[in-house]
């Protein structure tokens, strides 16, 4: 692959990919008989209008956590496809803590324990594939995918039996008490004297921003991050340097799983206030595309998360505004963005390089 300078790779390439994705989406929209400009106008308005912004950021929170999870593992060249299952386990940890301790411990303490449990449960679910990769050579892509199925099965069994809300037939736990919920940001804002539109956006958005900063420090400012990046670029060199590669792989997977588990803070502790089936809803998989688009850098992931959050929220809006645009068509538009900026992220690299670099070389 042609190597691009950083400004091209980070600045120009994603914009080109995004533009092409919207171009393709415009064709689809035109084919179903709507005016693409009008549709994109509604999409933008639906995502960023005052009342909608909170929803966009709420979706983005999920993507930040799962995107960071994928990116952190990828620094060590580990493809963690298991964020989905790790998030489910994170939710299970929250439910376990809240349902067990909300009656006996003070609310804030239960919330702190629940946060720790989300991270720990997610980490534990990722450590097993990590260990199998490091010490037994089982391919992490296969094992993490398997562990998604295991997690899914586990949740179905638990939610339709042992922890199902008593006296009810739907697969969910009973509601947590008010004392053990993450406060919504519009409530916090009112407390500070601002008026903000109601939305599911809650304190975990701030946690997500903190996580971005923490991951950046870990990867680029600590010796552990140095070791991870060394492993990612050349495992040979890392072994030569005396880095305990196997242990680092397990720790990287633990941290990645913890981040994925924290996605449940937003959904379960912040919004649903009960454990429900399938709350991870594909965010774990989309996180891989987010990480790819964000070039595995926390700042990029934040930007990509906002984009995907906007697509989710704005896409829902399209559904209401246009008769011909169903929920499925909104998904098609999202899919095109994932396709062009994720799977085909480097498709235009050679052309861009030829177009922009040959000209600058001629000038030099």
């Amino acid at each position, binding site marked *: 692959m042609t190597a691009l300078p950083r400004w091209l790779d980070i600045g120009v390439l994603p914009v080109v990919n995004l533009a092409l994705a919207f171009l393709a989406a415009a064709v689809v929209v035109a084919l179903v008989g709507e005016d693409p400009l009008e549709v994109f106008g509604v999409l933008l308005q639906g995502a960023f209008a005052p009342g909608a912004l909170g929803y966009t950021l709420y979706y983005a929170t999920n993507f930040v956590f799962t995107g960071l999870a994928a990116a952190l593992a990828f620094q060590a060249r580990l493809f963690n496809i298991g964020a989905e299952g790790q998030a489910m386990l994170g939710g299970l940890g929250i439910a376990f803590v809240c349902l067990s301790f909300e009656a006996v411990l003070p609310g804030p303490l239960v919330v702190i324990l629940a946060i720790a449990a989300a991270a720990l449960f997610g980490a534990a679910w990722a450590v097993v594939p990590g260990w199998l990769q490091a010490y037994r050579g089982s391919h992490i892509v296969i094992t993490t995918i398997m562990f998604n199925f295991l997690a899914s099965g586990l949740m179905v069994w638990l939610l339709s039996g042992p922890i199902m809300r008593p006296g009810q037939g739907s697969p969910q736990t009973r509601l947590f008490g008010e004392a053990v919920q993450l406060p919504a940001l519009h409530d916090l804002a009112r407390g500070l004297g601002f008026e903000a539109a109601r939305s599911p956006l809650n304190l975990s958005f701030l946690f997500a921003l903190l996580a971005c900063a923490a991951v950046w420090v870990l990867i680029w400012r600590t010796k552990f991050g140095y070791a991870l990046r060394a492993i990612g670029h050349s495992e*040979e060199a890392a072994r030569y340097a005396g880095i305990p590669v196997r242990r680092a792989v397990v720790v990287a997977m633990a941290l990645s799983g913890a981040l994925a588990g924290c996605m449940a803070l937003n959904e379960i502790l912040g919004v649903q206030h009960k454990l429900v089936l399938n709350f991870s809803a594909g965010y774990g998989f989309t996180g891989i595309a987010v990480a790819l688009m964000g070039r595995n850098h926390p700042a990029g992931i934040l930007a990509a998360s906002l984009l995907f959050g906007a697509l989710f929220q704005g896409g829902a809006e399209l559904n209401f505004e246009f008769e011909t645009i169903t929920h499925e068509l909104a998904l098609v538009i999202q899919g095109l963005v994932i396709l062009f900026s994720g799977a085909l992220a480097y498709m235009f690299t050679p052309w861009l390089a030829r177009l922009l670099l040959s000209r600058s070389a001629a000038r030099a």
Partner: protein
Amino acid sequence: MALDGGPEQAGHPAVRLRGVTKRFGAVLANDDVDLDIPQGAIHGIIGENGAGKSTLASIIYGLYAPDRGSMEIDGEAAPVRSPADAIARGVGMVHQHFMLVPTFTVLENIMLGMEGGFLLGQGEADIRARLASLSRQHGLEVDPDALVDDLPVGLRQRVEILRALFRGARILILDEPTGVLTPDETDQLFTILRGIRDAGGTVVLITHKLREVMAVCGTVSVMRHGRMVGRRETAETNTAELAELMVGRTVGQAERPAQSVVGTPVLRGAGLTWRSPGGTLRLREVGLELRAGEILAVAGVSGNGQSELLDLLSGLSGVQEGHVEFAGRRIDAAHPATPAEMRALGLAHVPEDRQRRGLVLPFEARENAVLGRPEKAGPGPWTSAAAMQAHAEPLFARFDIRPPDPKLPAAGFSGGNQQKIVLAREFDTVPAVLLLGQPTRGVDIGTVETIHAEVLALKERGSAILLVSTELDEILALADRIMVMNGGRVAGTVPAAGATARQLGLMMTGAGDGAAA
């Protein structure tokens, strides 16, 4: 037949290049190159690494298209746009890294791409017959049914040459063909090349070894920095003049100090036997002793256990049988030591493969300068760009690493400067034991001088050095004692004073008698 059917247009050179220019990004690999390769001769192209020899060969063979310039083959303007064009015009090439399928037999490799029809049977019989006559004609005896994987390197090279001749090559280009051969195999190769020449073929020998050019070539072209800087008849020149042309200045030998007083043994290995994960025996009962202030060189054709020995001593692979004693520790199968522990005991290691192992290429040079030395990267668990910069700057100054910017990624440095980054890092604290793998492989002559001087300086300061090299010249220039390895065994250890290339070469092939020293 391959060689006797060629057009004999007297006066036309076999290959004529005029004004050939090829640029890769910012690098001008070939700059306005003119070249005439005479018919029926062995012509050498010499130059340092990165002088543009391989690029030029690739242009003749159609792998690269030149940006400018023209090429004639046998006096005809020849647009050669692909290797297929080149083969059709009678140009063949033997690459530095062999292009053979190891799990195929010799015959299968030769018929690859010319199977002739849907079923293999008839084509195979034809090719077998033609191959036999070609082998006889050029003295290239190879068993057509042998698996390539089972053949020694020298024979694999013959298969490559046979394959090129089989496809009708009258002009044969060989890119650094002797790097992997023993002195004996090199002589055999030269006999074969002379045979091809005598049959009317043209041979282009690309190399950086001046002695070989003097031995086998009639004429030689010298390249430097992408330009053709000279052309000589080998009968009218000498190695000193050629070296000067290559480097652009007079080249000296590193001053070899008189044998210093040999210190105490620092590292001992005994009965080291090691099998690869596949179960192949790579080391058999290897014993060695490294002494302070002494250089023990390991000579041998690559692949005879030298790399495995380095891995074992550096802690990269675990001791299976036998033991190593180092800095008061006994390391054996029950008491392994990790690379980090060996380093802490005072071992430094310049690995043979600097690009995959010695450096993390996308990392900045200053990040590479702390590879394996996390304590230099910053306080506690943190890394600090300032600390790494402060560590790298004196290293850059001492080894004159260019460009002198530790913030550049390691991949952006030339091969020689990459090697200097590794050496600067490993030489930084005078190590008790230094493992030195192929320190000058792919490094230009000017830098070789610097590296040899630094190695000798380190020895003067009391390091015990184990030098693994496939260059006998280097071993004879640096070593105090020479240990020859063959088939994973120590074939013998001899004092360097009085050792000759011929004696060592015999030991490498297992024919020599190994006197203990």
